[in-house]
């Protein structure tokens, strides 16, 4: 296993009195695709949001590249696909990506924007406003937005939502390519089949606690629906 890209050390997160994440210790290897799995309310999204700097842990520490997570320092190295699509409805596909390219100081921004619009198959709609796109097309643009600045760490929360079969394949191939280019990918999803096909490691959380952490196995890939029973 390579050195940890992200490490969570005894991380707790409380919402009021409720502990959404409890004493979580997790090492996320670099250059891999780690699937963060668990049932609804297990704490997956909270973990991803803490890594992205959108939430602060109530207790414990998050290390990125071995150093304590510092938003100003690490924000540029993280790309995220969250529950919200983080796109402006009144701007076109190109304008949205150009806006984020400027925020992240992406070099050769115009070329990068056009490249990613082509990659996600939205070239025909490049000058269409986001509010004119279907949900699946928006999700593809969201993925392009997250990959635009070539982040070393890619966090994806339910990325397959609203995608058709072709777009799912496209996303899987983009994630595999990101892995081959030494990016670290963390995917949280209920689409077990798609997630297990590409994941190199699994981390399963249950009610805020880590209950499984290890390399992905063929037996999981072959029968994804039994995963939680096998682990328990």
């Amino acid at each position, binding site marked *: 296993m390579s050195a940890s890209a992200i490490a969570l050390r005894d991380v707790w997160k409380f919402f009021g009195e409720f502990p959404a994440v409890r004493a979580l210790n997790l090492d996320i290897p670099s250059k891999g695709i780690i699937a963060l799995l668990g049932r609804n309310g297990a704490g997956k999204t909270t973990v991803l949001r803490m890594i992205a*700097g959108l939430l602060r842990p109530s207790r414990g520490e998050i290390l990125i590249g071995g150093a304590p997570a510092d938003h*100003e320092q690490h924000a540029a190295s993280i790309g995220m696909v969250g529950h*919200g699509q983080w*796109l*402006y409805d009144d701007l076109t596909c190109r304008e949205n990506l150009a806006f984020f390219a*400027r925020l*992240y100081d992406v070099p050769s921004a115009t070329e990068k924007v056009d490249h990613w619009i082509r990659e996600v198959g939205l070239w025909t709609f490049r000058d269409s406003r986001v509010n004119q796109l279907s949900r699946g097309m928006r999700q593809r643009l969201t993925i392009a937005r997250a990959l635009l600045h070539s982040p070393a760490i890619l966090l994806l929360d339910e990325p397959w939502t609203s995608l058709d079969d072709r777009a799912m394949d496209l996303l899987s191939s983009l994630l595999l390519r990101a892995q081959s280019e030494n990016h670290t990918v963390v995917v949280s999803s209920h689409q077990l089949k798609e997630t297990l096909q590409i994941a190199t490691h699994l981390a399963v959380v249950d009610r805020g606690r880590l209950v499984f952490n290890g390399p992905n196995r063929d037996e999981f890939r072959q029968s994804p629906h039994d995963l939680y029973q096998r682990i328990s």
Partner: protein
Amino acid sequence: MTRLLRQAWTIAAKDLRTELRNKESISAALSFTLVVILLFSFAFDPVGNPDVREQAGGLLWIIYLFSGILLLNRTFSREAANDCLEALVASPMSGAALFLGKAVSSCLLLLVLELASLPLFGVFYAVTWTNDFGMLLLVLVLGSWGFTVIGTLFSAVTANNRLRELMLPLLVFPMTLPALLACVELTSLILLGEPLGDSVAWLKLLFGFDVIFTLLGAVLLEVVLLA
């Protein structure tokens, strides 16, 4: 510093482009301004009652404050759709750049509204606003900036509040009182064509107010958003 200004302008340009495209808040604020100018002129009859003209500065700034609130309500709620505020928080942009960008876009929209309504105000209140237009423009710029920096900060505070339309003026108006007093005093003198004299002290107060609250807002916004 260059990076901060560049990112601030990126935010301001995005907000202005979005606003010019859907004209949601500027059309509402401009319509409100014109209607209130008309209503006040009927209520106070400034043409038949010259004493009212001495209060023209006060009336003008009350109108601008209420219209400005309509613009400021959208400053951060514009980011609510598709959770775009999270995208800004997650980005490497500093809170200061976000604050400055938001304040610049709101201030520019407010200035457009003010300049568009001045001719009508001049006609209905029988005041010659072109007497010392340079000084009037300076007061409008400084006053609008002071108002928008306070409004931008509290717009972030109330962004996720269901009663934000009510909460924002309740928080902003008391805080802007020193700047409002300065603007009213200076504008009244300019509209009446009188020399500023000792009232230059109000101009200094307005400038100081802008500097202090710009720095405060730039420092506090990140804390507000992460809280």
